[in-house]
């Protein structure tokens, strides 16, 4: 899932101070899964912001909505009437959702309420860990299902580095597995350690952010 976290409340309060009526919008997909921007978080953040603003002498009406998906125009359109009645919008969807609202409802000010930071899996309740870096050139088939781009602190294609701890943890964070240690262990388990002897050449990064803004066209799907 796309992972996001609330921005500091003070930062949000400063952004909202100039307005009289604000729409706080959540998204019921990824940011709901990571407990940052779903309906529950909308209903948590709204009273919190009202209280924080009131305490600083600003009485601002905050109305709320949560879309099934903030990254699809059909769902975004559902907000048209509500957006017309407010001075500004605060979105706690990922950056995609925020931009969708900003584009559809221009020139209405749209502010992000979260920082979108990673592509994660929920390892257990209350613990999310990065799994994908959207690098555009997947190597999972050569690394036994562990991603060295997202899960190695140095994104090494030929690991491990010399910093693996004796307990198999990363030198950067003692709570994080050295992913190359896991790759090597799995290669041994499968009797394929020799597959790792081949030196991998530099990755083609042009299909990720390094190749400029992403734009994909599928003629078979276009109207």
């Amino acid at each position: 899932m796309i992972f996001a976290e609330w921005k500091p409340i003070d930062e949000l309060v400063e952004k909202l101070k100039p307005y009289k009526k604000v729409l706080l919008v959540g998204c019921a997909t990824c940011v709901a899964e990571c407990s940052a921007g779903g309906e529950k978080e909308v209903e948590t953040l709204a009273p919190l912001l009202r209280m924080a603003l009131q305490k600083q002498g600003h009485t601002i009406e905050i109305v709320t909505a949560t879309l099934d998906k903030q990254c699809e125009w059909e769902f975004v359109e559902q907000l048209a009437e509500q957006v017309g009645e407010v001075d500004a919008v605060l979105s706690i969807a990922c950056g995609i959702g925020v931009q969708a609202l900003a584009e559809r409802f221009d020139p209405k000010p749209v502010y992000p309420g979260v920082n979108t930071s990673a592509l994660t899996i929920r390892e257990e309740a209350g613990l999310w860990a990065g799994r994908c870096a959207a690098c555009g050139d997947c190597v999972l088939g050569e690394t036994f299902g562990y991603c060295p781009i997202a899960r190695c602190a140095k994104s090494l294609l030929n690991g491990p580095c010399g910093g693996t701890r004796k307990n198999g943890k990363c030198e950067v964070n003692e709570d994080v597995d050295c992913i190359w240690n896991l790759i090597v262990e799995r290669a041994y388990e499968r009797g394929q350690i020799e597959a790792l002897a081949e030196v991998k050449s530099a990755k083609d990064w042009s299909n990720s952010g390094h190749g400029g803004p992403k734009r994909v066209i599928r003629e078979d799907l276009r109207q």
Partner: protein
Amino acid sequence: MSNRAEEAKRVLEIVVLYCQHGICEDAKASAWFQAPGGEAEGFSIRAVMMPCSSKIEVPYILKLLESGVDAVEVIACPEKSCKLLTGSLRAEKRVEYIRGLLEKIGYSPERVGISRKLSQKPDELIKIARDRAAAVRPLGDNPMKTGEQQ
């Protein structure tokens, strides 16, 4: 009348969200929450029974504070006595989370508390509310009640 005298006279509104298993049978059968005597006691209780303390979600409590109540007390079962196993533990974690949120916006975390004990009697429940009222009285009114800056 001095400020101190006015403050002492103020009737604080304490909301008690209680697990149905956290209070004794006597308490269930009585209107214990009506016992405190307004100005004489300095606080009033609004009690709401929950099927389990884990049903108390973060927005519930924040919305109560937003509506102007002075404090919220959660009555939950002890950790190993929760009928739903981890319900009261979840309630405690949520209360801690809310207290952290309140601090971030400049509110005292004392406005929310939790008590974990089984089968509490009416006088014990009233004492918990009284203690919560005593903890928040020095803070002054909930700014949401007065519409003024704290």
